C-alpha cells in the first residue's frame, strides 16, 4: 500500500483510520524499550557491541554466560541479526546395508536400496547414513555395494560413521599401544571412506582427529558436549577455540552443542539438557560469527525445545529423518517436522 494514509468517512468528515500504525522504531537496530530493559539489567554495553558487529571479549562472553537468562540471550541473539532466516534442514535416510547383506545377495541389496532411495526422489539432496562400519571397511563386497548404491542417483551424500567408532574399532583390532599401526589404520579407513563417497563423518567430539579429517578433505561438524564443561570460563575457552579453528579451517562448516545423558539404550533428552543446549546455542551464535552453521540437533533436544532453538541462535535445525525407520535408528525428528518449523520461523520473522 506504500505510504498512502488510509482514511475513512465518518459523520461527513474524513478521518484517519489506519489499521496498523507502522512502528518506525522497528527499523532501528534496537528499539528504545529493549534498550531500556537491557540497560536496567546491565547488558547495554554488550548489546551495543553486538549491534555494531564487534567481537566480544572473553570476559564479556563469560558475563553473558553467567548472568544472562534465556530471555536476555534471546534478545541479544536478535540484536546480532534481526532478519535471520533458518537454513533448510537436511533430509537423512538410514540404509542398513551391512545387515541387508547378511540376508540378501549384493545384487538384491542394491535393488532394495535403490527402491528405497526412489521413494524420496522428490528430495533434491539426500544424505545417507549406513551405520557403524568398523571391519566392514575391509570388506570389498560391502564397499562395492555401497559405491554402487551411492552412484544410483545424483545429489546423494554419504555420511560416514563417528570418528569415535573408528577409534574403537582400530583399538580393538590392532596391536595395543602400537601408535603407528593405529594412525596407519585410521588413514586407510578415512581413505576408504572418501573412496566410497563419504563427504563427511558424523559430528566430531574428538578434536585430535580434526586435522586428519581436514587433510582428507572431509567436511567437519564439531560438537561441544556441554555436560563435560563444568564452568563458564571453560565454556568460553571452548567457544573461543572453536572460533579460531573455524577461521583457520574452512572445512569446518557446522558447530552444535549437545547435552542430556546416555543410558544403555543411547542418549535420552532431559529438561536440563534442553535448557543447557538452548543457552549453548545462543552463546555459540554470539561468539562463532564465522561459523557457517550453528546447528540445533533434534538428537539432543526435545521437540518443545527444538521449536525455540531458532530464536536462541540456531541457524539450522539439523538432520531430519525422512522415514520412521530412520527416525527410530538415528533418533532424529522427522524431516517434515523440521521443514515446517523452519518455514514457520522464517515466515514469522518476515512478517515482523
Amino acid at each position, binding site marked *: *500500500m506504500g505510504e498512502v494514509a*488510509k*482514511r*475513512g*468517512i*465518518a*459523520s461527513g468528515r474524513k*478521518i484517519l*483510520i*489506519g*489499521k*496498523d*500504525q*507502522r*512502528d518506525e*522504531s*522497528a527499523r532501528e537496530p534496537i*528499539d528504545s*524499550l*529493549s534498550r531500556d*530493559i*537491557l540497560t*536496567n*539489567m546491565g547488558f547495554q554495553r554488550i548489546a551495543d557491541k553486538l549491534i555494531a558487529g564487534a567481537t566480544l571479549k572473553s570476559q564479556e562472553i563469560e558475563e553473558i554466560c*553467567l548472568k544472562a*537468562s*534465556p*530471555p*536476555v540471550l*534471546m*534478545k541479544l*541473539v*536478535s540484536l546480532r541479526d534481526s532478519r535471520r532466516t533458518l537454513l533448510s534442514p537436511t533430509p537423512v535416510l538410514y540404509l542398513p546395508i551391512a545387515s541387508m547383506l547378511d540376508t540378501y545377495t549384493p545384487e538384491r541389496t542394491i535393488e532394495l536400496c535403490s527402491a528405497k532411495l526412489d521413494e524420496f526422489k522428490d528430495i533434491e539432496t539426500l544424505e545417507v547414513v549406513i551405520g557403524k562400519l568398523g571391519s566392514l571397511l575391509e570388506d570389498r563386497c560391502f564397499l562395492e555395494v555401497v559405491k554402487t548404491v551411492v552412484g544410483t542417483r545424483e545429489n546423494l551424500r554419504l555420511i560416514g560413521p563417528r570418528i569415535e567408532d573408528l577409534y574403537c574399532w582400530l583399538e580393538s583390532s590392532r596391536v595395543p599401544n602400537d601408535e603407528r599401526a593405529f594412525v596407519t589404520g585410521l588413514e586407510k579407513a578415512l581413505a576408504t571412506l572418501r573412496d566410497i563417497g563419504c563427504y563427511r563423518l558424523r559430528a566430531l567430539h574428538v578434536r585430535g582427529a580434526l586435522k586428519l579429517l581436514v587433510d582428507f578433505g572431509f567436511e567437519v561438524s564439531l560438537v561441544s558436549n556441554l555436560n563435560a564443561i563444568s564452568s563458564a570460563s571453560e565454556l568460553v575457552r571452548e567457544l573461543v577455540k572453536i572460533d579460531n579453528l573455524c577461521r583457520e579451517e574452512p572445512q569446518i562448516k557446522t558447530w552444535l552443542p549437545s547435552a542430556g545423558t546416555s543410558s544403555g539404550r543411547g542418549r535420552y*533428552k*532431559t*529438561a*536440563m539438557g*534442553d*535448557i*543447557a543446549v*538452548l543457552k549453548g546455542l545462543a552463546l555459540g551464535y554470539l561468539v562463532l560469527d564465522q561459523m557457517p552453521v550453528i546447528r540445533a540437533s533434534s538428537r539432543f533436544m*526435545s*521437540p*518443545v*525445545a*527444538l*521449536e*525455540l532453538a531458532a*530464536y536462541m541462535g540456531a541457524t539450522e535445525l539439523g538432520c531430519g529423518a525422512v522415514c520412521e525407520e530412520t527416525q527410530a535408528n538415528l533418533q532424529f525428528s522427522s524431516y517434515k517436522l523440521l521443514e515446517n518449523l523452519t518455514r*514457520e520461523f522464517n515466515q*514469522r520473522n518476515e*512478517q*515482523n
Partner: protein
Amino acid sequence: MSKIRVASVNYLCAMPFRVLNAEQAFTYEENSPPVNARKLHEREVDVALISSAEFARHGGYVGMDFGISSISHMDSLRLVSQCPVGEIKTIYLYDGASSSAVLLSLLFAERWRSSPRLVRIKSGNLIDFVKGFDAALIVDESLTDWDPKYFTQIDPVKEWRELSGKPFTFLVWATRPETLSLSQHKYVTSLFHRGIKIAKALVPQAAAELGIDEERCRNYFSKSLYYYLNEEMTSGLNEFYERSSRHNLLPEATYIGSTYSLLAPGQLCPQRQKPVRTILRDVLSGYRMGIQDGVRLATEGRLEDLVLVAEHLRRRISTHRTISHIAELELTTGTLSESDIAQIEQANQRGIKWLRLGIPTKLDSGKRPLLSEIERLLHFIKTKWSVHVEAFSVKDIFEWALELGMMPRDVVSRLITGGLDQLGSEGGELLINQANKDRVKPSHYVLAEDWINVVKWVHRFGAKSSCRLELSKDHTWEQRLLHLAKLRALQDENPGFKHLELITPVDPSKQLSGTDRAIATSLVRVFLDNIATIAESGFSMNDHDSSLGLCFGSNAAEVLYGANQNSFASYRTVRSLWNMGMDFEMSSSIVGPDYFTFQEH
C-alpha cells in the same frame, strides 16, 4: 443468510432497542450487561449492548454509535450509605454493575481520595447491607423518590458531570469489525433510530406494565437518557477511559464512531491499534492491557520482545524464583489412617508446610464423605500440625451443596471454618463454557460463572485459592485472554488467588508448540498484573514444558514431597535448575540441599 444474533439488556432504559425483536433478520435476546459482554466475547452473539467498561477491556470491538448515556443525572442509580462518603469502606453492588462500578472507583479515587472495597451481590436486597461504613450502589427503575433517610445519597452521573464537565455513557452497542456488512450496519442503525423515535409513544404502555408513574417515566426517557453517541457523548466516554486507565481501572482505550474503509469496502474499521512495542511499553509503565492487545502481542509481536518484557516484570516482582514443597496425601477414607498421620508428621518435621489433601469422591459405601466428617478432619489436622491445608475443587463444593440441600456459599463457609486454607484450582482450566462443552470428562467441569462465584466466596471468607490456565491447542489466544481477564477481574474485586498454575494437557496432540508455550507463559506474566506468582507444577525429569516455562515468565516451582520416584525426579530437576544458576530462593522453612541427599538415599 443466517440471522444476526443480537443481545440487548433487560432494563427499562433499553426499551427503544426492543424494536429489533420484531425483525425477522435477528435472533433477539435480553440479558444483564455482564452476560451480554461474556456472550459477545465468547462469540455467542454478534452484536450486543455491553458496558462501556467491557468495551475498553476487550479493545477489539467497534462501536455502533448507539448506547445508553446520561448527560447530567441518572434517576435510577444511587450510591447510598449511612456515613459520609469519605468514610465508606465497602460498597455492595448489584450483580450487573460494570461501568458504574468503574465509575465509582474513579470517583472515589479522584473526588474523595479513598478506595473502598467493592462487593458484588448476586441476590438479596442491597438495602439490607447499608449500615455502618457499608454502602450500596442501587439501581431502581421504579423511579420513585429515593428514601431521604440515608446520610449519603449520591448520583454517580451527577458527580461525574461535576468532575469532568461531560456526560457519562454506561452502555454501548458493539460488534466485531468483521461481523456486519455496511448494509447490515445501516439496517441496524436505522432500526435504532426508529426505536428511539417511537420510544416516547411507548412510555404509557411501559409505565402501565411496570406500575410506574407515567410522567416520571416520560421524564426519565426524555431528560435522563440519551441513545445516540454524538460528539459530546463520545468525548465523555473517552474522558472516562483516559481517567480510568490512569488509575489502572481499565486498559487504555479510545472510542471512535463506526467508520467504513474506502480501501476495504463494506467493512467496519477496527479501532485504531497501537504498535505492538507501545503495548509492551505501556505494560512496563504500569498500564493495564486489554484483551485485543494481548491477542496482538501473541500473534504479531516478536517473541524476543515479549519474553524480555516478561522477564523484566518477573524480576520486578521478586529477584528470585521460589520453590514450594507440597506434601500430597490421598486419603482412601474420610479420616486419617495411621500411615497418613505418619506421612504428615514426617513432612512437617522436614519443614513442609503445605499439605494438599485428596479426599475420595466416593467411599466404599458408594457415598461421598460426610461434610461433618471432613470438618472434623480439617480441625484435627490444623490443631495437630502447623500446616496450610489445600483441598477440594469447586466441583466438590457443588456436589456437597446438592447432596445437603445447601448453598455452595454455606458449604464453603463450613469448610473454611473447619480449617480449610486453600481451595484447589481443578475445574477452572478455561472459564469459557463453550470451549468446555466437548471436553472428554465433562463431569470434571462446572460452569464458568459457578466456578467464579464459589471462588469469590472462598476469598470473601478469608481463604485462598489457586487458579489455572490449560495450555491446549484447542483454545484460541482470545479464549486464553478472556479466561485471564476473568481471573484478573475476580482478583481485583475479591483478592485471594495465591498463584496461577500453567497446565499442560496430557494428550501430546493437544500440547502447545515450544514457541507458543513461551508466548503463553510470557503473556500470562504481562497480562495478569495482580497475581504475582505463576507456578509450574508436576516436575519430573522429563518435564520439558515446566522447565522451559521457568525460563520464560514463571517464577515458582511446585515440587511434590513424597517417597516415590516422581518426587525424587522432581527434586533432582529443580536442584539441577538451581545448579544451572536459576535464581531459586530456598525458603527458610524448607531444609536445604541435605534434604535432597536424604531423599536420594
